[in-house]
């Protein structure tokens, strides 16, 4: 059976979402997106410029992808909402990734403002994917606010530090009834695989692909890693022995020894 997942009303095959910042050349982007087989691609609206066709980043997104503008640069819910409205007016569709960041040193998201923006935009018919700090109560509020998926960070944006928030991600994956897409911080394919093994519905990768020496080759590596991690999750991972190998049931083996009734 095909392993699809749904965001909004869209059934998706690819669990690798891609970002478009930091590439040394717009022309490298479509090749990387294709190699990743990504179906959802996010673009910072602040960079889109319909008045300058040759340099307009929107012209480099393959037409078969879902374009998901993001609100990079928004410091408040109000600014995020304005950017979303501009994106819609520019013909970028109804998908929106909310980024509300009022910390320029670590680029950590502001969960409260993110929830506010999600609520407003979801009511307006946007398919909202909010980027957030992994916090269970905030994630629940995002669900209530109408988010289509929840995108917690693995570590700060662009840091390539991997899944530093692993315990909190695990809780979100267990408790939130929406797709959890790990966004930000994933620096190498093995970390994407680890997120997928845990049961994440998908991962969003940008920096690790964009600044690789060969972006398209790295995108392909991420595609394979996401598929491997997902397959492992579906296959059911064996339990982990914290202190090395152990007898199969040292404490309750007596129950099978025939001495008890």
């Amino acid at each position, binding site marked *: 059976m095909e392993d699809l997942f749904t965001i909004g009303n869209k059934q998706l095959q690819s669990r690798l979402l891609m970002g478009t910042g930091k590439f040394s050349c717009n022309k490298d982007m479509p090749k990387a997106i294709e190699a990743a087989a990504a179906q959802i691609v996010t673009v910072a609206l602040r960079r889109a410029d319909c008045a300058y066709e040759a340099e307009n980043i929107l012209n480099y997104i393959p037409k078969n992808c879902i374009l998901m503008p993001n609100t990079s640069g928004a410091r408040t819910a109000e600014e995020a909402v304005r950017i979303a409205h501009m994106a819609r007016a520019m013909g970028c569709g109804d998908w929106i990734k909310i980024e509300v960041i009022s*910390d320029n*040193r670590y680029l950590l998201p502001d969960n409260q403002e993110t929830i506010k923006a999600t609520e407003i935009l979801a009511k307006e018919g946007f398919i909202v994917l909010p980027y957030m700090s992994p916090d269970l109560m905030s994630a629940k509020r995002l669900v209530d606010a109408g988010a289509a998926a929840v995108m917690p960070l693995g570590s700060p944006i662009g840091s390539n530090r991997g899944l530093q928030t692993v315990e909190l991600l695990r809780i979100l994956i267990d408790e939130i009834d929406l797709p959890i897409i790990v966004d930000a911080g994933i620096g190498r394919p093995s970390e994407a695989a680890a997120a997928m093994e845990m049961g994440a519905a998908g991962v969003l990768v940008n920096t690790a692909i964009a600044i690789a020496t060969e972006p398209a080759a790295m995108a392909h590596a991420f595609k394979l890693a996401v598929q491997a991690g997902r397959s492992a999750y579906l296959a059911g991972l064996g339990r982990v022995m914290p202190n090395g190998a152990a007898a199969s049931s040292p404490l309750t083996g007596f129950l099978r020894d025939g001495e008890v009734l």
Partner: protein
Amino acid sequence: MSFLQEMEKYKDLDLPEFFSKIKDQDVLSVLRKEKLNRCDYLTLLSPRAEHHLEAMAQRARKLTIQNFGNVMQLFTPMYIANYCDNLCVYCGFNHDNVLERKQLTMAEIEAEAQKISETGLKHILILTGESQKYSSVDYILSAVQVLKKFFTSISVEIYSLTEAEYVQAVQSGVDGMTMFQEVYDSSIYKELHLAGPKSIYEFRLDAPERACRAGMRNVNIGALLGLNDWRKEAFFTGVHADYLQHAYKDVEVAVSTPRMRPCAAGFPPRVIVNDVNLVQYITAYRIFMPRSGITLSSRESRMMRDHLVRLGVTKISGGVTTAVGGHTKGEDSSQFDISDTRSIAEMAQMLYSEGYQPVYKDWQGLY
């Protein structure tokens, strides 16, 4: 709390003494640390750290690409008036200098904007001298309304405003301000700024913070290199940036590293800041403040700029004129002589050849 109080913490700092104790091992230890404190930054500014420039440059390059990507933002300045009431001894616009004074009309500003926008740029930096008569806040903000038709991001490099005036600017659509302290040493500042509103050191020093409080998105600070010991000025610029970034987390704090250039004032630099010094400053700052922007102007030569884009710079000018109306009327009565005269298209070509994507638009004004 203001930055003046923050600076007080360093009043007993004896730089020669500090630097005399720095050994190679100290520099290497700093370079192994993940996150630097201010003392580490000063270590990287030491004469001893000059022996480790390649290692500093490698780390600076890696951090810049990781945090900003293989991209470089482009911008150009537009001088709209050069009347000035100040007597800054090193500046071409100094009130007592004989040069043709101009103030562009709104129609002339529109013509300049039209010309610049044909390059594809969406970021503009407008500059004036300090004159309540010829470059009042109302005049500048009227210019902003004209410029909004052509650009999605407008920054100002003008005299120090009050907080209320910065609020007014932000509400009018200004999203960035550049304010050079020129020199952080207050006694040298007083020697060089003989008269006019700019002669009040504290009011200028606090201007970036007033802009932060007013909701400005981008605040760009800097010291004019050549007026004092560059290591000291670089240190205080870094401390100032760190102070602002800590206190105003939502502001994008950036620095410029302008070196003095020849100008109508004919004032020679008090201190020579050579190319090695500039590279040390830029790389040390990048390692200290990995996410902060570094702006490089056309004061630097083509050769230096081609190399510096790889060492930490995130924003670079092109198609520059420092004359009022220079984009449409040519170069005369400029503030200082520029060194790199390449156009925006030529800068874009250079960036592509260096593996960087030129960014013409990186913000969409919301108001």
